[in-house]
């Protein structure tokens, strides 16, 4: 974690259950970069919800919340315990920055797949990728095992006292993976807005994605890399032509 006078970088995992009636834990440690925060993060990393155990976890969140949060209190409601496994959704704040005018900017990684096809189309234009029919893109995203995104969230300072200004959200990066949900996953369509390249966001996007895939027990994570990005993926732990295995394409169209 790096600190500087005007910008603070902190990787903080949010654990929340994506439903209005579920337990929500939303904490922000803006401009706070210290060992206390890191141990707090480690403690939270160790907290894994177990089925039927959410009431005891609520106590833990309460004590953490009262001790550390400076922002407005969040609602802690009794969670709905479903019959099937409770899905853990990860959002990771990769970058948090407070501008001089008070605007809060956050770059958030999410693997929940909430990508608007038209926003994606704009992003693809920016990197010079050919357009594809939006309906097909929507279907392809829906059929993907994981759609990871980077969004830039901008919250301007509140002009009306208690009422916070609306937060604006912009898609600045995406990657998706197809998989058989058991053994193999293949990563496709990795892109980052040129304006935000060179900051390590692509690296963070892939790292989070790989971490999520490994957590879901997908052992074989593969991809096809264009010649100019092979080194980028090597740096992330990918090996080219592993054991001499070659990637082959059926009558490829260049």
């Amino acid at each position, binding site marked *: 974690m790096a600190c500087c006078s005007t910008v603070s970088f902190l990787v903080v995992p949010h654990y929340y259950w994506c439903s209005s009636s579920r337990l929500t834990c939303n904490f922000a440690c803006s401009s706070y970069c210290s060992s206390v925060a890191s141990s707090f993060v480690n403690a939270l990393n160790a907290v894994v919800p177990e089925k039927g155990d959410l009431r005891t976890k609520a106590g833990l969140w309460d004590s953490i919340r009262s001790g550390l949060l400076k922002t407005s209190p969040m609602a802690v409601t009794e969670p709905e315990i479903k019959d099937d496994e409770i899905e853990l959704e990860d959002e990771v704040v990769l970058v948090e920055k407070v501008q001089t005018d008070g605007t809060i900017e956050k770059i958030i990684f999410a693997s929940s797949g909430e990508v608007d096809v038209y926003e994606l189309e704009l992003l693809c234009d920016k990197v010079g990728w050919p357009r594809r029919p939006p309906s097909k893109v929507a279907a392809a995203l829906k059929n993907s095992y994981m759609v990871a995104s980077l969004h830039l969230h901008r919250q301007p300072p509140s002009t009306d006292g208690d009422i916070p200004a609306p937060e604006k959200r912009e898609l600045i990066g995406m990657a998706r993976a*197809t998989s058989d949900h058991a053994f193999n996953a*293949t990563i496709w369509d990795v892109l980052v807005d040129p304006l935000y390249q060179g900051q390590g966001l692509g690296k963070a996007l892939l790292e989070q994605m790989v971490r999520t895939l*490994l957590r879901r027990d997908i052992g074989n994570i*593969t991809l096809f890399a*264009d010649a100019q990005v092979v080194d980028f993926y*090597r740096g992330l732990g990918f090996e*080219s032509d592993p054991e001499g295995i070659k*990637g*082959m394409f059926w009558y*490829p169209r260049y």
Partner: protein
Amino acid sequence: MTLTNMLISHSNLGFCSDFSRPLLLPLLLPPPPPAGSSFQPFVSRLTSIVGSTGILQNDRKLRQTCQVMAAAPSYSEAAGVTESGMFSQSDDDLNSRGFEIHMSRDDINLDKLNSLFVMVGFPRREKGKLLRALEHTVSLLWIHEKKSGSIIGFARATGDSIFNAIIWDVVVDPSYQGLGLGKVMMERLIADLVKRGISNIALYAEPNVVGFYQPLGFISDPDGIRAMAYSRRRR
């Protein structure tokens, strides 16, 4: 896309038309002829209808195409996949030698599949995980050997069903290798993917089988693209 191409593109009826294209007056076209029937009446029926619209009266290539199609029921499935437009061995050929092609996961026996995996040196997969993998597989093919009742060939493809597909787990029982069954499976799997409109079909080939995939139309590292896999060892 020429009209000829449109006509020979994916057709579920094995017939010289594509009913989804309004240009072809689908209501007027007769039902497909039964397999093995003489192609002459078929061609004349088609040209009499199409001829009346003045579109294809003189299209010699189309006539030739329709002749081939009428003669080989498996043509349209293989169209665009094999050079001849026909599978190297037809379903009937295979049946007469005791091999049944299946492309549904419904009656697949996981134990028999695992036996096949073990025979070729793959790890035996945990059944729950294997079932989950098959449920999220876009297209698969298995060969049932009638006498022994075992599965002697398997191949599957995963993907997003729209743009990309990856072919995995292409295996043939060592006792039945060298009979062209690998090619039989690949032709059909690719034809199925092409029929679904998937244009990008890829796979990861071990060095000793790159030569097997090349004649089937696969090119390795096209345009410098490299296959990569995450390696936990390095972490």
